[in-house]
């Protein structure tokens, strides 16, 4: 089990992680969701003892990473995909890690085959695509057959096929009762992948919100452009639909299916020039969420 307790990390005057507490249980894929700059990477780096916490603690199975007997056999970590010497071959990269962790060399070929890199094993990493580097990082994390996997934005650079593979892999990993903790700033990714989710923004836990609610908010509204925008506004209001004029001739409609907006316009004989769904970005959703929390607090 991963436990983060009252974790704070300060860089100069910036608070990257602010009194953050959460737990990650085994047997499930737990998503770590937040917009870019929310403090996800910093939290994971503290958890892996690459970065020192200003206050609080982060432990795996009750111990700090540096106190694990054999970290590679207990925890596999996939951080950014750029951590390679470009002149070293993919297989040699894994051999170095295996050597240091006392993992038998045959395991190197096993994990290479597992991530689908067996054919490129002898090529130098310089010649690898971003997706191949990401696979190589994942292979490295699996060397010691760990029970805990920690991944920081693992889908970055992976092609759709790679993402599907990763999703299935993480699923079966968790189904074996092991722990998966995977960060992402892409809502759809987490929604597809995770059983549970830890949501942070500006270094703090957003505990009052469920993934469901965020997805609902991220759906955004409907944008309608019409030469008869005033009539449309009246018709929508009469039907109990909230809408607001965002620019001349354009209405933003909230919390209403796009079909209903179109049907209402047709029923009233209103000409439409545009009818489109507008998805909100995660950043926008989070901004709105924080605004509402601050208002609630005030």
């Amino acid at each position: 089990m991963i436990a983060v307790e009252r974790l704070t990390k300060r860089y100069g005057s910036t608070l990257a992680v602010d009194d953050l507490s959460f737990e990650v249980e085994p047997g499930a894929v737990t998503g770590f969701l937040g917009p870019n700059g929310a403090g996800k990477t910093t939290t994971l780096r503290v958890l892996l003892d690459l970065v020192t916490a200003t206050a609080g603690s982060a432990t795996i199975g009750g111990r700090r990473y540096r106190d694990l007997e054999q970290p590679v056999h207990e925890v596999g970590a996939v951080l950014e995909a750029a951590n390679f010497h470009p002149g070293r071959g993919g297989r040699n990269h894994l051999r170095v890690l295996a050597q240091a962790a006392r993992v038998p060399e045959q395991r190197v070929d096993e994990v290479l085959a597992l991530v689908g890199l067996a054919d490129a094993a002898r090529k130098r990493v310089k010649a690898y695509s971003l997706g191949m580097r990401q696979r190589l990082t994942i292979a490295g994390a699996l060397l010691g057959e760990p029970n805990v996997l920690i991944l920081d934005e693992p889908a970055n650079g992976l092609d759709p096929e790679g993402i599907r593979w990763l999703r299935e892999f993480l699923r079966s990993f968790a189904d074996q009762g092991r722990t998966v903790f995977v960060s992402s700033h892409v809502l759809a990714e987490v929604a597809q992948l995770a059983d549970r989710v830890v949501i942070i923004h500006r270094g703090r836990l957003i505990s009052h919100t469920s993934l469901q609610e965020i997805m609902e908010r991220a759906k955004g509204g409907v944008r309608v452009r019409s030469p008869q925008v005033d009539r449309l506004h009246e018709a929508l209001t009469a039907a109990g639909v909230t809408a607001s004029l965002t620019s001349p001739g354009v209405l933003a409609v909230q919390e209403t299916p796009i079909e209903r907006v179109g049907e209402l316009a047709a029923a009233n004989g209103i000409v439409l020039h545009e009818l489109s769904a507008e998805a909100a970005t995660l950043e926008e959703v989070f901004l709105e969420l924080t605004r509402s929390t601050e208002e609630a607090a005030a």
Partner: protein
Amino acid sequence: MSALLSAELLKLRTTRMVYGLLGALLAIVAIATVAAIASSSASDLADDQEGLFAAPISGIVFVLVLGVMLMSGEFRHGTITQTLLVTPRRWKVLLAKLVAGAALGFAFAVASDLFALALGAPLLALKGVDLSLDNDAARLVAGTMGVMTICGMLGVGLGALIRNQVAAIVVVFAWLLIVEQLLMELLKDNAKYTPGEALGAIVGSDHGDLLSTRAGIALALAYVVGLAGVGGRFVFSRDVQSIQT
């Protein structure tokens, strides 16, 4: 520890840099050895064959640079992240790298001395001179091995102190080309305590202005401990962030 050491040595063996620099050193040794024998008369060569083993010491530059790269190269390429994930106790990593640096320096010294011998012996025979390795030559060879071994560790120590690889390598050259001379001017009678003079005491046969061999070794090792200690405590221990590429 032995697993970590072999991992460090494997890192060195699996990139081309080591082979490139070893090749460059052997080329220098070849040129210097041929020149030394070609330019001396047979009678001089019969008297004094120390010059045969003079060139390998120029390998300290390569060994210093490789030592630096063992450490700061990991930050340059971001591989330090994975190294520390396998071995989160950083002092273990530093120690393994110091030993790897020493092994590297020793290997470079042995390789270039053997190369000088393999090249020099037939050339001497061509000139009709017998190969006779006297005490001075033996001392030079042993000294070169000692100095190169320590330089490998000095490079690692410097890399622990200066994470930026380019900056660390610039420091190596600035030291060798400028700072050492400046210090010798400034320190006058105490010049024998500079790193360069400490190394000189290990390899030199004339100890007029130098420390004794033993004191030279002790002082050079103290420099290693100082660099690695300060670097390990205050720099290598810092946060390791993701690198931007």
